C-alpha cells in the first residue's frame, strides 16, 4: 500500500475516487436515468408496464400554437363592443374544446394581443410550465447581478482592518448557515399581509400613510418578495467568495496605485476589479445555477401561487414527478432544465474567457 502511494498517478486516482464515485452515483447516472425516463410513460407507482413514448412528454410540455379569434358580430355584422369599450370575443374553449380542432385539444391560453379586429392568442400545452420557465428566467436575470453586486459591496466593506469587523462578517454570513426552510418560514411571517413585520415597519416610518400590502398573496409582488428574500439569504455566501478573491490581490499593487496617486475609484477599476476576474466568473456561474434551482422558498412560502406567479421549473419538476406521481414528466422537466443551464453556462464561459 505504502509503495503504491509513491506512484503519483495512482495516488491522484485514489484521492479522486470517493468524489468520482459519489458524483457518478448521485449525479451522472441519475441524469442518464432521467433522460431515459423522459422517453417513457413511467409512473412513480403503477402496476401498468412502462412503455416507450418517444418525444410525447416533450411535446406535452413545450407545445405552442397561435390561434386567431374573430370578434363576435351582431345580426347586422357589426363587431360587438362591451360596456368597457372592448371588443367581445368568443371564449377560447370554442376552439380548444371543439371537435373541429383536435390538434388544439387540452391547450390553454398563455397570452394574447390584438391585431386589427382579431385577437391572436398564443396557446400552450402546458401553460403552467411556460409561466414557470418565464418566472425562473426572470428570477435568474434579477438575482444574479443584484446578489453578485451586493455581495461584492459587502465584501469590500468588510475587507478592512477595523475593530470588531468580525462581528459584521458574522452578521452578514449568518443567514447562509440557517436552513433555507427556516428562513422561508420566518419571511412568511415578515411578509404577512395584515400584521407582518414589513408592513408594520413601513407604516411606522411613513407615519401610517402606508397601506399594508399582502406581499405573498399578490401576483404583482409575490415573485419580487421571494427574490428579495433569496438575495438577502445567500448574499453572505458570495460575499465570502469575493472576500477570498480580494485577499489574493497583492498589497504591493495597492501601494503602487497609491504612489501613483490613483483615486479610490481608479484603484477599484484598475487594480481590484481585474484582480477579481476569476472570482467574478465563479460567482456569476454559481449564482446562476443556484437561482435556476429555486425550490425551497417556493415550496414553503407560496406553492407556486398566487395564479402561478411564483411557479418555477424545479418546483414543477418535483410537483409533477412526486406530487402527481408522473416520474416521466418530472424527468422531462429536469432534462430541459439541464439543457438550459448547460447552454447558459457555456455562453457565460465563452463571454468571460481569457482573450
Amino acid at each position, binding site marked *: 500500500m505504502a509503495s503504491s502511494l509513491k506512484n503519483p498517478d495512482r495516488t491522484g486516482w485514489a484521492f479522486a475516487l470517493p468524489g468520482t464515485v459519489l458524483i457518478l452515483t448521485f449525479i451522472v447516472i441519475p441524469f442518464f436515468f432521467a433522460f431515459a425516463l423522459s422517453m417513457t*410513460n413511467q*409512473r*412513480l*407507482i*403503477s*402496476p*401498468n408496464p412502462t412503455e416507450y413514448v418517444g418525444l410525447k412528454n416533450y411535446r*406535452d410540455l413545450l407545445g405552442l400554437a397561435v390561434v386567431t379569434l374573430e370578434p363576435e358580430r351582431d345580426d347586422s355584422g357589426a363587431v360587438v363592443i362591451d360596456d368597457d369599450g372592448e371588443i367581445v370575443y368568443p*371564449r*377560447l*374553449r370554442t376552439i*380548444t*374544446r371543439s371537435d373541429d380542432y383536435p390538434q388544439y*385539444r*387540452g391547450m*390553454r*391560453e398563455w397570452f394574447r394581443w390584438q391585431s386589427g379586429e382579431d385577437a391572436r392568442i398564443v396557446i400552450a400545452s402546458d*401553460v403552467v410550465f411556460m409561466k414557470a420557465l418565464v418566472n425562473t428566467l426572470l428570477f435568474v436575470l434579477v438575482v444574479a447581478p443584484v446578489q453578485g453586486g451586493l455581495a461584492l459591496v459587502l465584501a469590500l466593506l468588510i475587507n478592512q482592518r477595523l475593530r470588531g469587523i468580525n462581528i459584521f462578517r458574522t452578521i452578514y454570513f449568518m443567514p447562509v448557515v440557517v436552513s433555507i426552510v427556516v428562513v422561508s418560514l420566518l419571511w412568511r411571517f415578515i411578509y*404577512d*399581509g*395584515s400584521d407582518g413585520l414589513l408592513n408594520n415597519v413601513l407604516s411606522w416610518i411613513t407615519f401610517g400613510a402606508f397601506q399594508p400590502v*399582502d406581499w*405573498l*398573496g399578490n*401576483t404583482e409582488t409575490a415573485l419580487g418578495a421571494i427574490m428579495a428574500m433569496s438575495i438577502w439569504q445567500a448574499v453572505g455566501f458570495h460575499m465570502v467568495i469575493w472576500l477570498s478573491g480580494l485577499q489574493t490581490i497583492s498589497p504591493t499593487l495597492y501601494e503602487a496605485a497609491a504612489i501613483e496617486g490613483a483615486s479610490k475609484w481608479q484603484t477599484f477599476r484598475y487594480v481590484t476589479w481585474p484582480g477579481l476576474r476569476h472570482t467574478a466568473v465563479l460567482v456569476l456561474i454559481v449564482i446562476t445555477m443556484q437561482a435556476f434551482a429555486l425550490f425551497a422558498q417556493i415550496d414553503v412560502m407560496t*406553492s*407556486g*401561487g*398566487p*395564479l*402561478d406567479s411564483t411557479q418555477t421549473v424545479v418546483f414543477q419538476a418535483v*410537483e409533477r414527478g*412526486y*406530487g*402527481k*406521481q*408522473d416520474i416521466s414528466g418530472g424527468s422531462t422537466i429536469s432534462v430541459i432544465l439541464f439543457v438550459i443551464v448547460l447552454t447558459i453556462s457555456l455562453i457565460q464561459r465563452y463571454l468571460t474567457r481569457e482573450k
Partner: protein
Amino acid sequence: MRMMKLTAGALVAYAALGGTAAMAQTELTMWYHGAGNEVELTLINQLIDDFNASQSDWSVSIESFPQESYNDSVVAAALAGNLPDIIDVDGPVMPNWAWSGYMQPLTIDESLIEDFLPGTKGIWDGQLYSIGLWDAAVALVTRQSTLDALGLRTPTLEEPWNLEEFMAALEAAKASGDYEYAFDPGMAWTGEWYPYAFSPFLQSFGGDLVDRSTYQSADGVLNGEAAIAFGEWWQSLFAEGYAPGTSQDPADRDTGLIDGKYAFSWNGNWAALGALAAHEDTLFLPAPDFGNGSVIGAASWQFGISSTSEHPEGAAAFIEFALQDEYLAAFSNGIGLIPATPSAAAMTENYAEGGAMSVFFDLSAEQALVRPVTPGYVVAAKVFEKALADIANGADVIDTLDAAVDEIDADIESNSGYGH
C-alpha cells in the same frame, strides 16, 4: 432479490427484537402515521401491548412516522420492497395503494364491522382493504351569540341553510362590521384539506371531481353547469370580501373564530374541543345545502395489510382486536375523533347522547360522502386544490375548470383507466 431483502430484513428484525419478544410469538411489524402526537402514541402503544398480551401467536411491533412524511415513506418502502405487515392508510389514498399492489384484501369477520360508519370502510374493487376505528367530520362552526346578534335562524340536520340563507348570513356578518371576515373556509391549510373540505361544496352544487359512473373522465362534472355555478360562488366569497384568501395566516386559521375575527368557520371535529373550551356557546352546524343536499367529506386513517405480508392472518387478527368498542372510545376520548360505531359513541364523553360533539356523529352518519374511490384520486385531489386556489385568486372560472378537467383526464388516460 426482493425475497432476499425481505428475508434479510426479517432476520435483522428477529435478531434485534428476539431477545425481548416471547419466542413462541411470530413477529409482525406495523407502521403508523401518528408520530409527534403523544396522546395518540400512548393510545396505539396501549392497543398493541394489550393485543400482544392477549394471545400467544403474534407479537406486533410499531414504528411511527410524522404524518407529513408518512405517505412518502410507504411509497419508498414499497418501491424498495420492504413494507411492514400492517400499515395505516388515509381513506381516499387506499384505492391507489391497493391498485398499485401495496395492499392485500382484508379478510376479517364481517359481523364485526356491521355497525361501522360507512366512511370507515375502505372498499376497492368490491373488496374490503382497510377499516378505520374512527371517522372525521366537518361542520360550520359558529357561536349562538353570533346567530342571535345577527338575527339568524339555527339550521338543523333536517333543515340546513340553503344557498340564499347562507349568503344572507355572510352578508349580515359582513354588514355588522364586527368581524374581519364573515367566513373562514381554511385556505391556510393547503394539501388534502382542500379536496376533503371543499369538494363537498362542489358535490352539493351537483358537480364532482370525476364522473363516478365510469371514473374515466371529469368532463361535464368538474366543468359542467353545476361546477361552473360552484366556481363562481367560490370566487365571489373572496372577490366580495367574505373570506380570507390563500395567503391567510395559519395562526388566524387556528384561533380566528375563537378570537372573534371570523363569524363562521368551516372546521373539523379535531378542532371542536378547543373551540368549546374557549366559548361554551360554540355551535356545530350542518353544511349548507347548495341544491343537492348537504354534503361533508368522509373517511379518515384506516388499518390495512401490506401485499408483502407473510402473515396476513396475524395482521387480520390484530385489526380485529383493534376494532373493539373499548379502543374506538379510547381514541375518541384521547384525540377527539368520531368513534366508528354507535355503541362506542355511547361510551365516550363527547359523542354520547347529548355530548358536546354528538352532532358530529350525526353529521358523519347523515351527510358524509367518500371522496371518489379511485386510484386516480391522488392526482385529481392535487389538480382540484390548485384549481380552487387559482379561482380564489381571481382566475377565470370556466377556463380553470376546463384546464383541471384536461389534466385529470390526461392522467387517467396515461394510467390506462386506473383499472376500473
